[in-house]
């Protein structure tokens, strides 16, 4: 009894308030994760999905998948896709944020319009781009041909190399507003007088950008990059609609491969295994994010 009193007396009471959320997380998040891990250690196929005893095969699924070339391709594809998307999204988003940070007429409505790609459901964007990238009737080939940039139509979605490029272009288009809006919010937190005093000290635009804007935005930039990474890394609908992982697995990502294993090929355990690999990678990235986040907090 005394112990409980002591427990409730101090700051410890906070733990009690956290409890409902923690229980919720344990049931609705913790359980699926654990059951997914268990599933990846078993051999669950059409023959065993309904039997109570599911053969436990240890890490065999992981070993088997790592020997299979498609998993390696998917990991490489997922990273290529994510890194290239982030680079372009971030650079273009940053540039646009700087432009719209200036006060000029129509800045606000135009900024609102630029948010559009972010708000369109991804399936619709994907279908739209699928038509636009079509080899024979697509508008992109038509424009490139009219400008005499290409002579022959480019087989955007039916050639291994260009299919990935097409996906990246589409996703950059979707992701720019996200980057732009977060960075412009960050920009508004920088007081104008810092720039003023810098001007008085004779700093030019480039110096102001690298010495004031970038350092002041450090934590915003870190959040944008890491959140963007996580968001892009788990891409599913875009790839599923535009290429479904093809041609010849050249755009297969971890999420689409996991789906294909589970629901096209009925290899439930291997599907779960791929999902876990995806999870582990994102978990590491999240840890990184928190480390940066807490480091920032600590210095203040």
């Amino acid at each position, binding site marked *: 009894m005394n112990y409980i009193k002591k427990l409730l007396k101090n700051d410890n009471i906070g733990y009690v308030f956290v409890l409902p959320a923690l229980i919720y997380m344990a049931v609705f998040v913790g359980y699926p994760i654990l059951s997914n891990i268990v599933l990846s250690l078993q051999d669950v196929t059409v023959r065993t999905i309904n039997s109570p005893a599911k053969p436990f095969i240890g890490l065999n699924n992981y070993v088997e998948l790592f020997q299979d070339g498609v998993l390696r391709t998917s990991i490489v594809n997922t990273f290529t896709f994510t890194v290239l998307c982030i680079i372009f999204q971030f650079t273009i988003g940053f540039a646009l944020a700087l432009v719209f940070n200036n006060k000029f007429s129509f800045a606000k409505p135009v900024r609102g319009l630029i948010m559009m790609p972010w708000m369109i459901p991804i399936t619709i964007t994907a279908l739209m781009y699928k038509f636009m990238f079509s080899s024979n009737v697509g508008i992109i080939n038509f424009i490139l041909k009219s400008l005499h940039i290409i002579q022959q139509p480019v087989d955007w979605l*039916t050639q291994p190399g260009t299919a990935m490029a097409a996906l990246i272009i589409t996703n950059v288009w979707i992701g720019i507003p996200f980057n732009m809006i977060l960075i412009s919010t960050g920009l508004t937190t920088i007081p104008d007088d810092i720039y003023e005093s810098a001007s008085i000290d004779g700093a030019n635009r480039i110096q102001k950008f690298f010495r004031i804007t970038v350092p002041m935005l450090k934590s915003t930039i870190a959040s944008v990059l890491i959140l963007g990474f996580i968001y892009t890394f788990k891409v599913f609908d875009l790839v599923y609609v535009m290429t479904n992982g093809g041609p010849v697995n050249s755009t297969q990502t971890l999420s689409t491969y996991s789906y294909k294993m589970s629901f096209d090929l009925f290899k439930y355990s291997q599907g779960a295994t791929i999902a876990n690999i995806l999870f582990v990678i994102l978990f590491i990235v999240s840890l990184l994010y928190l480390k940066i986040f807490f480091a920032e907090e600590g210095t203040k």
Partner: protein
Amino acid sequence: MKRFLVVILALVITVGLLAGCSGKQPSSKTDTGTSTPETDTSGSDKEPASEKKSLTLWYYWETIKHQETLDRVIKDFNSSQDKAEVTARYIPFADFKKVLSIGAAATELPDIVIIDSPDHAAYAAMGIFADLTDKLKDWDGLDQYYEGPINSCKLDGRLYGVPFGSNCLALFYNEDMLKEANCDVPTNWDELRDVAKKTTKDGVFGFAMCCLQNEEGTFNFMPWMWSTGTSSFEINNPNGIKALTFVKDLIEDGSMSKEVINWTQGDVMNQFISGNIAMMINGPWQVPTMREQAPDLNWNVALIPKDAQYASVLGGENFAVIKGDNEDAALEFVKFAADAEKLKSYIDDFGYIAARRDVAETQFTDDAIMKVFIDQLQYAQPRGPHERWPEISNAISLAVNEVITGASTPENAASKAQNTIDGIIGK
């Protein structure tokens, strides 16, 4: 402690962000949860014998005409007796396998399903279908079924369903385009290649067929493989390689667009009726749409050109009864719907050919196009059947895609696919 909190927080953030992706599994569980009331009612009416049993049927036809016709059959059944009441639930084709698999794991299933025939064996292996071998032993319709369709309902020699209706692929051709190029309808591969080349001109491809990297792509490639005389499970032999090479030749001649790897059968049909394609491979279910949308187009249908022998691929659906308390009532519905007289009254509206001889012979007697399909059906073979057909199919459609995109030579693609297939059937 702080470290622990950090880990928990990290978990929370990853999971929160993953919600769109990994959330799929739990969320689809709640999806099937919506069917709980239905299964509940069917479970709770065990005691009162006078009460009607309520049965659920799952299907995936998206065409309005198909849905209306199915509703009519169900209504007839419900009013014909007072023991059971069937309700149908539509599940989109893309989600059908997923919902059924999850339903199987969570034991929340309907009582009857109408399922794509190549998947039948896999679900039978899951043990969710009732074994009908003994129950249908004395049913008089059984010997009327064509061999292909009835075999697709079997696993290890036992019967797990009854064929619903069948279709198969055939060659569609644009009569005007062939006439203009001075060509006859091709009957073998050489002629087909020649006609495809001659009909290809600015903005028109001579030939097209769906080559998606999924079951639909395999479905369209199998006739070529079988035509050489090879089986579903042997691709790495001169015949299998020949079939792959033929597809490659069509692409290299410029007679077939590389975009076929992204075209569904519906897309191929749309290109055909838009006049962008002179010949295509497609199925009878497109015929009503084509007549409606392109009434002025001059087109006709012929057997798929052959290499060593005529071949086509069998498509269609089967009825299956889910294991459980409602097995017998559900089987009554299947027998009702599959009865020869009943079948005759609705199967034409589906654009399907009945899977039983006594009905098929009376169908489409004045429809020249559908007659070709009935003719083609006798050369049609089922895919597999094998409980792991989806994996085998994936290997085959991947090989076709590798050849079309030029990622592999036909020889390499065939040997890779064969390795995968051997690993599956060897087990």
